[in-house]
């Protein structure tokens, strides 16, 4: 085991840090610590410009291979980039779905034409993406998607009809990747396709969902014969599930370390509050803060294990990767509760009316989503028990 970074890596860290300090100035200054989960609705236009600023410096898609426009950074350098990014308080990325999900998926499963058509816009920070997975009747049971795709041979296009829900940033996005049923007779994970769809067209309507925070970053997206070019299906019709599952693997990448730096920023704020209002003297609060601190440290070590480990040849996740979602989401939810308990009765008082939440209030409410999206805690426990421990699979319900 070896944990140190090389002198070259440390030099890279200095380079990242100084670029961010030099550029997160002027109009961008107000973006510091903004735009993360729960705060996505703030400064969308400025954050789009910031995305392009990053691209000018060569700081988008740092982990992608150079041949696809990336920076070709080693894992160590990617870790450093995301750590420094969060440490500086640089804003939540509006381009993270394209960079983290669409790009790696097209690099792994896409055609050369698809890569040439879509990757440059992601690298340049000019084209934003959203993810069309969940549906009203396909939540935990994701394979139960009802959205249909039929090929109109006369027009040479796929026509997509149906409804997606919980689509982050749909209202800001240029494209959406969508899983839809290509075989209307099929059930479950068979007969699905993975489509790349332009959002700006008459067949698509986006309706924001007003959330527990009073703000909206999730949307409903309605497709009514929305068009998709024949060349914009990834893999063959029927391969959609395989592509969709491959994509989920990319969600557990190095960017989780950046996420943890954001958690650290939040915990630092909780510590600051506790020290200033006297809660830091309360023995129960002390225990809870120390526990949050210890577990966040370990979360980082766990990610280092994930990044260092070799995935099985069958693509199976290592145990430390299988437990990761359940661990961080539960930790983060507890941090929200801790933040309010540190504030005491003051936690009720808003920044201003009618419903302007402080950063910690917003965090407290938003983290309730963490243990629900991307596989609820209950689904995570099923997956851990079945794949990690070989316990019996859940019985299938009778078809309706």
């Amino acid at each position, binding site marked *: 085991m070896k944990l140190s970074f090389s002198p070259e890596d440390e030099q890279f860290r200095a380079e990242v840090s100084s670029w961010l300090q030099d550029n997160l100035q002027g109009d961008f200054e107000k973006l510091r610590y903004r735009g993360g989960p729960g705060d996505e609705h703030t400064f969308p236009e400025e954050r789009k410009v910031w995305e392009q600023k990053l691209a000018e410096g060569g700081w988008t898609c740092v982990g992608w291979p150079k041949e696809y426009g990336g920076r070709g950074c080693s894992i160590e350098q990617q870790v450093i980039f995301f750590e420094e990014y969060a440490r500086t308080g640089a804003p939540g990325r509006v381009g993270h779905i394209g960079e983290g999900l669409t790009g790696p998926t097209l690099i792994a499963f896409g055609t050369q034409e698809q890569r040439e058509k879509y990757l440059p816009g992601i690298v340049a920070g000019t084209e934003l993406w959203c993810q069309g997975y969940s549906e009203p009747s396909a939540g935990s049971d994701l394979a139960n998607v009802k959205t249909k795709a039929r090929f109109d041979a006369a027009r040479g296009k796929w026509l997509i009809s149906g409804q997606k829900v919980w689509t982050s940033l749909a209202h800001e996005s240029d494209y959406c990747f969508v899983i839809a049923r290509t075989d209307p007779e099929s059930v479950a994970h068979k007969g699905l396709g993975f489509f790349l769809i332009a959002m700006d067209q008459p067949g698509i309507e986006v309706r924001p969902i007003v959330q527990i925070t009073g703000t909206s970053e999730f949307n409903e997206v309605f497709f009514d014969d929305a068009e998709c070019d024949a060349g914009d299906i990834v893999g063959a019709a029927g391969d959609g599930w395989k592509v969709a599952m491959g994509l989920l693997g990319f969600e557990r990448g190095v960017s989780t370390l950046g996420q943890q730096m954001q958690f650290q920023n939040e915990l630092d704020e909780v510590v600051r509050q506790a020290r200033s209002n006297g809660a830091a003297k309360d023995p129960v609060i002390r225990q809870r803060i120390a526990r949050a601190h210890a577990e966040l440290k370990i979360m980082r070590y766990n990610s280092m294990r994930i990044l260092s480990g070799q995935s099985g040849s069958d693509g199976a996740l290592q145990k430390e990767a299988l437990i990761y979602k359940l661990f961080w989401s539960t930790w983060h939810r507890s941090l929200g509760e801790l933040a309010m308990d540190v504030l005491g009765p003051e936690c009720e008082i808003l920044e201003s009316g009618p419903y302007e939440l402080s950063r910690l209030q917003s965090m407290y409410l938003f983290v309730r989503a963490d243990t629900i999206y991307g596989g609820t805690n209950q689904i995570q426990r099923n997956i851990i028990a079945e794949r990690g*421990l070989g316990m019996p699979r*859940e019985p299938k319900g009778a078809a309706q």
Partner: protein
Amino acid sequence: MEFVFTQEQEMIRETAASFLAEVSDSAAVRRAMASEQGYETALWDRICGEMYWQAIHVPESCGGMGLGYVELVAMMEQMGRHLLCAPFFSTVCLAANALRVAGSEEQQAQWLGQICEGKLTATLAFNGGSSSWDAQAITATWRREADAYVLNGEYRYVIDGHTADLLIVAARAEGTAGEQGISLFLLKSETPGVSRQWLPTMDQARKQAAIELTEVRVSADAVMGLPEQGWPALAKTIDLATIALAAEQVGGCQQMLDMAVAYTSERVQFNRTIASYQAIKHKAADMMLKTEVARSAIYYAACVAHEALEGGPLALELSEAASVAKSYCSDAYFEIAADALQMFGGVGFTWEYDVHLYLKRAKSSEHLLGNGALHRERLARVLLD
């Protein structure tokens, strides 16, 4: 950054696992724990003679294998998994670490050399009977008389204290408090004035003793390091031992999880294995989460401990890494053992099944060297005060 075992470390881990599966099965543990000595001499001789584990992280210059703390931690994990009854934790994780941190070259050559030859067991005594496990826990005293030091006082919770050949004891100058005045002494256990009493314990697989010193006279060459400035070295030794103990706890977590999954996969009620119920699966999933998180904590702590002994920037994190690991692992082990007992149901309550051995070990190791709350308070002091 390579946060995984090297091939050689993996091999050491596997060798330890297969050896212990053979020599430390349930019958062997129960034989050893029923005796006052607490281990079988023949097995300890095999460990020292064939496996050379007692020498694992001792430098080659002192007759050791010269391996690192990562290897030691990998081995402790396996010992915890198999509840090995042997004076390993006391001799290697407490005493050898104390010698490495505080011993002079001569003291190291003499005593580490004998430990490596398998001729000597040893332990560390500092706690006078407190739950604080810090400098305040040291109540024994020393005073100077001409060229000699005279020691008086009591120690409790001394691991293998009734059998160890060599005692490393901490005492404070008469009239001092806190971290002041503390010195470490090397003491052969048969020195006149040393009285040792085995303390029967709930966890029979790890033996504890009380030691009483009455006007014990030692010469100046028994002092480790500078007199009155022993606390930093002792604190470092305790942190190193704490990390090893946390690793042992992780081995216990893994064993409880595996036993619970195996048992519930066999046990049938209502015409299905109870492992097929979500109530059981979700408990098992939480147990696996805690086990893997605990493992991430001790692997990192092992790297920190390694640099604390061999040099490196991580050395500065020793105290924090020990508290992060021990607080998480202590709570995780007890919760996992308690859940495992619940999953075993009635048979988990019997003396015949091994679950109680682990439940008892979980509680004894939780309180040894400070429980979760104590280590969280140590972290809180740095963060909040």
